[in-house]
């Protein structure tokens, strides 16, 4: 199966975007994002905290629908999924 990971803004700078991965059946959403993010230490640290949990401000979308990051550890990805990960910005 193929899943596309799209990172935005600062996450894109660190990790690139439109990354196509071929996870095995039953791969959890959180594990997939972590695995891809691990290719860049700063990228991983921007998205995950020291305990490996999503940082609380990170927005996660699956096929344009919001996924609570707390639930991403129990959701499995399916073929054709498009996962978007982005950080809200705060400046004005």
């Amino acid at each position: 199966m193929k899943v596309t990971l799209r990172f935005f803004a600062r996450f894109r700078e660190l990790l690139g975007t439109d990354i196509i991965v071929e996870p095995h059946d039953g791969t959890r959403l959180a594990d997939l994002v972590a695995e891809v993010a691990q290719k860049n230490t700063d990228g991983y640290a921007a998205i995950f905290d020291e305990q490996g949990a999503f940082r609380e401000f990170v927005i996660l979308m699956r096929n344009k629908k919001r996924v609570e990051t707390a639930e991403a550890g129990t959701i499995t990805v399916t073929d054709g999924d498009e996962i978007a990960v982005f950080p809200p910005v705060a400046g004005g």
Partner: protein
Amino acid sequence: MLSERERERYKRQILLFGNEGQERLKSSHIFIAGAGGLGSPAAIYLAVAGVGEITIVDMDTVDQSNLNRQILHTDRDIGKKKTVSAIAKLREYNPDIIINAIDTTITADNIRGLVGQADGIVDAMDNYPVRYLLNRVALEKKIPFFHGAIRGFYGQATTILPEKTPCLACIFPRAPPKEVFPVVGATPGVIGTIQATEVVKYLTKQGELLAGRLFLWDGLAATSEEIALEKNPACPVCGSGAGTEPPAGMIR
């Protein structure tokens, strides 16, 4: 009624939405929270569009390091209150409208009075705690909340319509960490101008608002994206969670 002078001044936009649209702008009052990077372009474009009354609030003094982006203020304004500088520029841009510039910090205690009878709130703040306050007051008063935020070359914007769209706390339940954010002036230029466009569209009833949609601008890649937004049924501000403990950083 529009004066002859007004019909001439706004001639090129009356072509878009007619005298009726222009009169709607003239009879409207918009509240702009912040006279910085986003507040500058938003206020300038709303002033020149002929929004009849603009209230802009800021508690800061113009600093040299503001000038790369806060285009309401110029080199000779360094050290002046931003409200003093803002009101002078906006009056020069359009002497036919009412400008109120209030030098204060927006708090949970004063926000309702500050917003008053305004027809909409433009979010030109640089922090989420005050954004959450503005969001809550917009919901209470049932007026639109035009959200914008930026960092570096990146920006985001959405238009929040009470009871119709997700509120700011549905979309961003947790604030990103505080920081001295990097920024190039053109980025708040893009986002503040989108906010002003949304206000004009809302007031003149034109087009499709950015309602229930989050616009994401990536100036570095020169791409924009849009994310469909959904209400959080358990939202502590607009959903069933109202009245429960607010998220961290959210001021009641």
